[in-house]
């Protein structure tokens, strides 16, 4: 496309998206965005027509998580824009790169309560990294470039671009523009200069602090994945031989099958991961943010630990926990520099003697593994068993997405994540209904990989309609629906903290019929009720690749997720599985 060509803003918008490297977008048209949907017909960009705009947002997130490329959403004004608020907020809290284009009423009508007008930039200001209201067609290429730049650099996040109808509508003279290939200079972002390289002096100090630590732990968060630092992390950990915990957002960032991997810390973390952090004398936090679900009651969190905190967002350094050394920078670059600095001061030989620490840790691992009791014949399935079978009957590079609730915790606990970018979930916002659309987005981005959505019955009922999208668009994902007939996680809290007074958590034993519902949506539906049916059903699902499959596992509603740090309690008060209670650590 040559510069100076006359075109309409709508064409320019689609062109600018193509130029940004967009290969797919998720959306649903309507009045205000209509003129942009016409040039989409002739575009190289694949458009996936969703059934609800929330689905489009989570698909874009799943796509971004799986591929590392920004997810793109296009929807109309008003109710469509409000429907994407939840995924925008989800992407904001989990730092997911995403660009969302919303239609808007014509510029002159803004502020008049026009049909399907809403203050989209006002509403989304608090849930986006940044947003734009474009007022002139001529600004479209530079704004799109800026949007992708902001979404994908620094701490990634969602950026929304609101486009009034008149500047994209060919019948309106305000849509006339002269095409130009926008450059960085056109973006005009005088206040945006993310810093990626860590301060060498701080990195040297950190290396020295690590060298002498007796009980260090690498506390690894989603930033490792965002900065593509898994390989660098592996090198660092192996060089200094320090155990690693991977937060809910970082499962797979360090392989679960590695001897240094302690697994997930936090509210439903395993005993060893939680306790190792709790007793450590140095936490090296890499791309993590001391979320309350990880720290438990803050004043009781890792009381003896010094803190080295590496994050690309300086506002995270010291936000929650005072740091001893705070390093602003891209995790990958800082880890590489840190590894070099460690090598300079003597590498593995120079490290403090940590044999006692390692043997304490393996003692915990032996004494407090994740456990559950297998169901008696005739009883409903144990969800943990379903997850173990899923894990054992799928290749290690399978992508697993999840909803929010007990099933999410079981998935994170019982799956073994040996590769980065194989685990996709909603950590910060905890959005029920995330798994199915996220799985669709992941499958679109990684069509050759198997994608399983682990879902709850509550979650399924929030976004199941996107299985219609998956069927019609030929996106053969698989859903493991853990149907316990309850809003299980809430039920667990009511059982443990509200004297078993169950309030509004029972869904239904019989309704809906998930098999029929799945079939109606163009999927294969399979119901599984007994342990011996589990593996064959998974195998059968894995053999079907011409349409989505939903396997409904009828699971035990009485089952609770352990270990658990009760809300408001310190991590030292972790409640282990009933069968392990009373054991001395």
């Amino acid at each position, binding site marked *: 496309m040559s510069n100076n060509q006359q075109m309409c803003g709508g064409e320019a918008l689609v062109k600018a998206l193509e130029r940004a490297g967009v290969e797919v977008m998720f959306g649903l048209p309507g009045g205000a965005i209509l003129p942009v949907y016409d040039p989409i017909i002739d575009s190289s960009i694949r458009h996936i027509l969703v059934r609800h705009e929330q689905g489009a947002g989570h698909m874009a997130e799943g796509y971004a998580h799986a591929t590392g490329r920004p997810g793109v959403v296009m929807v109309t004004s008003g109710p469509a824009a409000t429907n994407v608020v939840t995924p925008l907020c989800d992407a904001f809290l989990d730092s997911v790169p995403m660009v969302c284009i919303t239609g808007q009423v014509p510029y002159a009508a803004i502020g008049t309560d026009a049909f399907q007008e809403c203050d989209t930039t006002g509403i989304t*200001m*608090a849930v986006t990294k940044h947003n734009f*209201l474009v007022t002139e067609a001529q600004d479209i290429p530079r704004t799109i470039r800026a949007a992708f730049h902001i979404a994908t650099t620094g701490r990634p996040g969602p950026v929304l671009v609101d486009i009034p109808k008149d500047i994209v509508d060919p019948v309106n003279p305000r849509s006339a523009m002269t095409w130009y290939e926008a450059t960085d200079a056109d973006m005009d*972002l005088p*206040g945006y200069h993310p810093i990626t390289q860590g301060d060498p002096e701080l990195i040297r100090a950190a290396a020295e602090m690590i060298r002498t630590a007796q009980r260090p732990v690498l506390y690894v968060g989603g930033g490792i994945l965002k900065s593509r630092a898994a390989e660098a992390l592996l090198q660092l950990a192996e060089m200094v031989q320090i155990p690693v915990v991977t937060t809910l957002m970082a499962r797979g960032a360090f392989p679960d099958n590695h001897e240094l991997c302690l697994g997930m810390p936090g509210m439903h973390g395993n005993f060893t991961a939680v306790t190792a952090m709790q007793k450590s004398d140095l936490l090296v936090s890499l791309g993590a943010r001391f979320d309350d679900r990880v720290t438990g009651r803050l004043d009781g969190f890792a009381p003896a630990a010094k803190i080295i905190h590496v994050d690309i967002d300086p*506002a995270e350094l010291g*936000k929650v926990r005072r740091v001893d050394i705070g390093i602003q920078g891209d995790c990958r670059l800082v880890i590489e520099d840190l590894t070099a600095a460690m090598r300079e001061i003597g590498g593995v030989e120079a490290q403090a003697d940590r044999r006692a620490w390692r043997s304490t840790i393996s003692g915990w691992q032996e004494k407090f593994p994740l456990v559950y009791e297998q169901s008696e014949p005739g009883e409903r399935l144990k969800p943990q068993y379903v997850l173990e079978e899923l894990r054992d009957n799928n290749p290690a590079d399978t992508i697993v997405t999840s909803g929010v609730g007990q099933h999410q915790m079981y998935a994170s606990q019982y799956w073994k994540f040996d590769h980065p970018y194989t685990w996709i979930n909603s950590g910060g916002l905890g959005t029920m209904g995330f798994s199915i659309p996220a799985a669709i987005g992941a499958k679109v981005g990684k069509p050759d990989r198997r994608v399983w959505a682990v879902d709850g019955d509550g979650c399924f009922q929030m976004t199941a309609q996107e299985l219609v999208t998956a069927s019609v668009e030929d996106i053969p994902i698989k859903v493991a629906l853990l149907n316990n007939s309850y809003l299980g996680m809430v039920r667990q809290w009511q059982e443990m903290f509200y004297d078993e007074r169950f309030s509004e958590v029972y869904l239904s034993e019989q309704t809906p019929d998930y098999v029929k519902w799945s079939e109606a949506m163009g999927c294969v539906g399979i119901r599984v009720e007994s342990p011996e049916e589990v593996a064959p059903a998974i195998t059968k699902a894995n053999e079907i690749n011409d349409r989505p499959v939903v396997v409904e596992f009828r699971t035990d509603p009485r089952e609770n997720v352990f270990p658990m740090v009760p809300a408001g309690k310190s991590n030292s008060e972790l409640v282990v599985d009933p069968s392990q209670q009373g054991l001395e650590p």
Partner: protein
Amino acid sequence: MSNPDRFHTIVTTVENKPGVLARVSGLFARRGFNIESLAVAPTDDERFSRITFTVDVESAPLEQVVKQLNKLINVVEIQELPPEDCVSRELMLVTVAADAHHRRELMGLIDDWRAYVLAENTERIMLSFSARTARLDEFEECLRPFGIVELQRTGRVALPALD
């Protein structure tokens, strides 16, 4: 304003675009930062505005306030000015009751404080007074017995002190 050292001035240079003030004030609201005062005006370069605000460092985590502000894409520069490192001023417009009985006394006070008379009639005098915020507080107290009819303060603005 008991301990004046509690109040730090933050001077932000922002892009002069629609909605930027909403981004800044929205940030304060959702992060739970209380601001004491706020003043906004374009700078000598029309592409930028300056937002000057005062925060109570005993109630707001100053470092977080600054870092979170910095994350706003439209915020170009932030200067944090502790009281000892800046020159700050605030402007007050005030209409005071001034009947024949008290007029002489009030005029004396106005002279002493070097306030300006902007307008007057037989019952009232409108004044302007500009000084450090604490001086405005004191002046306000002196005026109170006469009867303050209306009062408007601007919030403080500040520049770094000269060496």
